[in-house]
């Protein structure tokens, strides 16, 4: 389970879904492994508006990983600004930005000419290369534990929880 996937997972029980405590699932006795994959700035750009930043921060803390900035970065922070030549830590989030980005990706397709920033590389490493190989994912609402073995989680429920 990559950390990105964990930001998309909640308890499989229908009765837990409406409860805020069922998301995210809490990793316990986790073994992490770094599995290198190709850097994909186009994907990061499209992902950013859908990424639950506060959840990602919670997961980082649970795994004991270095802390993230408080506010979600903007799309521009993923790329080097030509005139400044360095990563920019712009913390101001514009409400409308997310929608624009998705449309933009639809239109532009595979074109991305800007050079990626260090922030983008760090996010790539955290979201797509850091993998939970063993451990348990626990629902904060019902306490059910989902086992992760060899990187594959099992979300099947026993009959009394269906």
């Amino acid at each position: 389970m990559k950390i990105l996937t964990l930001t998309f997972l909640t308890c499989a029980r229908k009765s837990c879904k409406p409860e805020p405590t069922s998301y995210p699932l809490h990793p316990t006795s986790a073994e992490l492994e770094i599995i290198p994959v190709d850097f994909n700035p186009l994907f990061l750009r499209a992902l950013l508006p859908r990424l639950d930043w506060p959840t990602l921060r919670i997961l980082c803390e649970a795994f004991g990983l270095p802390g993230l900035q408080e506010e979600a970065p903007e799309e521009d922070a993923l790329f080097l600004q030509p005139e400044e030549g360095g990563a920019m830590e712009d913390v101001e989030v514009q409400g409308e930005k997310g929608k624009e980005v998705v449309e933009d990706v639809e239109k532009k397709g595979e074109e991305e000419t800007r050079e990626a920033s260090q922030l983008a590389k760090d996010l790539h490493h955290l979201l797509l290369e850091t993998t939970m190989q063993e451990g348990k994912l626990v629902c904060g609402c019902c306490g059910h534990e989902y086992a992760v073995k060899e990187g594959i989680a099992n979300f099947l429920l026993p009959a009394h929880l269906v």
Partner: protein
Amino acid sequence: MPDYLIRLAQAHETFRKPELESLAELLDIRLEFLEYSPDSPHCLVRLESLKDAEKLITRSILTDSICELWGQGSDYASLHADVKERTTHRWPDFLHASFRFSVFGYQGKRDTKSHSSIIDSFSYMGFLGPIRMKNADHEFIVFEEYGIREPEPKRIFLGRLVARGSRPVVSKYDLKKRSYISTTSMDAELALITANIAKASAGKLFYDPFMGTGGFPIACAHFGAMCIGSDIDGRTVRATPDRNPLTNFKQYGLMSYCLDNFVSDLTNSPLKCERWLDGIVCDPPYGVREGLKVLGSRTGLHKLVIFEDGTPAHLAPGFIAPKRPYSFDAMLDDILHFAACMLVDNGRLSMWMPTATDEDIALSIPQNEHLELLSSCIQTFNKWSRRLLTYRRLPGSVTGPVMPRPDKEYVNGSTADDLNNFRKMYFEGFRDKSSKG
């Protein structure tokens, strides 16, 4: 807007137009069909530019090639007249470039000698450049289309080759060469077409809730989409250390596009119920070769099972969650409901569905108020067929975390036959209803 001739594969005919239309939409290209027939591999379209033509076709699985149309006719006299009218002013541009001519017949062929005389008949264009059979600057192709057992072609086209489609990719993903497959793995060609129709592309996030051995995620990954796959059957997801879905991704060098695979049931999905998926592609279990099951107890008693020594059964190592047979219609509605909850605006759901060939299809296509049916492509077998249904998530109407699934009456019963009409008909051999008596 110039005209182009697309030479299609004469296979999976009902998929050809939806594939091209989906690619045009994905690439933001204006595509207008001028002439199209399911019985012919030759299709005339209008596009805005040469670049569009190239972009459109490069990814197409059901296209052999696209040519700039230089002329068409019902015989050689009318073809030559049309070529002269359309292209005389362009001949000087090609005067000194290297070129080659070739002749292709559909439902008919000629010997090499007549090929040369056909090619020579275009000598009035007066090209002076060298003839190169390999890597020529320009390739001109004469397409002949014959009626069945007719000596002369009924339609002839001359085209200048612009680009070739992705048909060679099909053999790359051929199941025979794939390390890990199962009895119900989707044919590589149809999986790739499905990914095209669902508009899988770089930067997008795709999900297959019935991944099996991972055929659809691999097809989507081929086009650059990041993929998540899951299956209720943990054995197919984990498989063996040397043959599993990940070894397939590795085999094709697509590991970077595999986000995760896990074990889960669509009716009790662990995925966060928000609209974050760009596409869902799936081939749900038909209940014939593989069981159609969901989580739950067959007896309906959803009680906590406790061993004699007092420990709950589900905490024991190696516990296997009980599953029960499920109604096929309910499963299809569940998939649609799930797609409506999870897809972004205009995100696509491409789903396969089996039907008896004489069944009234209009009645059995599942509907959902948030999804618009875009295309229904059919692959026929002998007495049954299956369809690729593609839906678009209608924009707007944001759904809450638990949008209620519309209630509907499904057949009651607990055996697979009671719950799945298709399965029942399949094992009854699709007998005529009147003869059942």
